């Protein structure tokens, strides 16, 4: 069985952020980009299945700039067997639909039985990519798995929906996104980090995926950012840095409001 895990590189969440109106409102963040933390849970779920079954391979699939190789290496260090990185200048500016087209083409090319994704990307936070990719492939989609079981050519998940926990399932191949509470991702050992460098990492450009020009990247984008502005002013509470006196400051605040 072949499992693909879609992984994205995202800006470091802890770093300061600004948006740059001069550069198409692109997000500028200081600090190093990293593997989308939500995707580490999808890798972990794939590895847990692979470790308990015979003949299961796990491939990390990423669309991103060449520099995203570092995040792909992280996926390999965590335990993926190999990786595919789709990089091409023509992919810059892709929207959800364009990204989904690229990932769907890479998935078709790889012939996977199951594709796992994170619940959201930390920067895009669209939550919808699994559905779009599934539609392009004609596969069923199951999102936000809090638990996952794979057996006999089918997959079943438990997930929280508006009316409580529900169970949904589908036959394979299928797309599944996992909640970030499904597991605790492992930390790669130093040995695994070194070993990752020797694992196969295939780099593909757009031509390798046979996608019509204009269907991806800036030209293919069907959702358009028209303007970027400041958020409406928040009612504005006080935020303090704890210097050891925070508890007293909270009590003082609660006393002012007659809450203690």
């Amino acid at each position, binding site marked *: 069985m072949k499992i693909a895990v879609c992984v994205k590189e995202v800006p470091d969440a802890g770093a300061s952020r600004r948006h740059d109106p001069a550069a198409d409102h692109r997000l500028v963040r200081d600090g190093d980009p990293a593997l989308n933390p939500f995707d580490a849970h999808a890798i972990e779920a794939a590895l847990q299945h692979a470790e308990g079954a015979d003949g299961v391979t796990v491939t990390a699939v990423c669309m991103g700039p060449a520099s995203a190789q570092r995040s792909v290496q992280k996926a390999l260090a965590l335990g993926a067997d190999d990786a595919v990185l789709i990089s091409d200048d023509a992919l810059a500016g892709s929207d959800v639909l364009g990204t989904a087209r690229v990932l769907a083409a890479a998935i078709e090319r790889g012939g996977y039985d199951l594709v796992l994704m994170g619940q959201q990307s930390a920067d895009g936070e669209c939550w919808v990519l699994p559905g779009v990719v599934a539609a392009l492939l004609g596969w069923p989609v199951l999102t936000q798995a809090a638990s996952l079981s794979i057996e006999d050519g089918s997959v079943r998940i438990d997930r929280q929906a508006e009316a409580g926990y529900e169970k949904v399932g589908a036959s394979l191949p299928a797309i599944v996104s996992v909640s970030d509470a499904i597991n605790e991702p492992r930390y790669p050992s130093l040995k695994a980090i070194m070993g990752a460098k020797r694992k196969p990492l295939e780099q593909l450009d757009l031509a390798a995926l046979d996608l019509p020009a204009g269907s991806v990247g800036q030209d293919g984008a*069907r959702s358009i950012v*028209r303007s970027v502005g400041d958020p409406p002013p928040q009612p504005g509470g006080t935020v303090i840095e704890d210097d050891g006196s925070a*508890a007293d400051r909270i009590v003082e605040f609660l006393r002012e409001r007659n809450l203690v």
Partner: protein
Amino acid sequence: MGSLLVYVESSEGQFTTGSLGVAAKAAALAGELSTSVTAVVVGPGASERAATLGSHGVGRVLAVDGARGDEPSATEVADAVVAAVRAESPLLVMANASVLGAEVAGLVAGRLGLGIATDAVDASISDGSVIVTKPAFDDSVWVECGWAGEGETAGVALFRAGSFSADPVNGATAEVVGIEPEGSERHVEFLGRAESTDEGVDITQADVLVGAGRGLGGPDQFGVVESLAQALGGAVATTRAVVDAGWYDYSTQVGQTGKTVAPKLYIAAGISGAIQHKIGMQSSGTIVAINKDANAPIFEYADFGVVGDLFEVLPKLEQAIRESS
């Protein structure tokens, strides 16, 4: 001019408030554009209650009554919405970001090759087209999005749950017609619901809630929040991350897929403050937050925030409260 097409979701035999809110918003936009709102409803009994959507501003309803299981699955709903788009050529497809709604929006955008704007909190008309507003980059900026479609239908808009009021606007009745869904070959199967595990305290009745998030670090660490809650005469509330991980009971969960609470005081500890959590507790009288990450969204709506380690702050807070009472 094409209509605005809204997927109005059913759950356990009722239309969901989130999707009724989107219908009401669509009705307001349709008024400005001099067009109308068409709804798609799917699932057992959906066509019987569909006429009532008129009171939410819906003119016409395209209904699919059957479902393969007890509840319609995302693929079945997408089949209906895709058929509706082909039949109606609407200006825009709109849905509420429930778990099912997000899957449906993704499937529809993928099948029809439409652009999709997610996480929208508002919509307006600009130069005769609908545009949406969405917070981005952890809510640090607000972005206006539109679509560049080739056909008559511009795209798909998915709205954050709780963005709009779902109150009926009048007593009108909608016209209801059946529609033949476009058949997907491969389906998601709805296999049932887990037994409800409701037990213990009813958090909706508490005056004080100490909210515990994944920052607690594990199921054995809840002593700090439990004893603080006790000192304040309150109860412990949780996030989905905590409940999905099996650290605490589902009955304590606050948010979109949990309970809605409005205590006098909500102390959020180790909670990032995701929108899906916020919509369950934003009506609290006073919100205090303790989080290590100064960028955590919870600080945007806390009345008093502390950037710090909850394991440092909470025990001291408990002590100070016990001493002061």
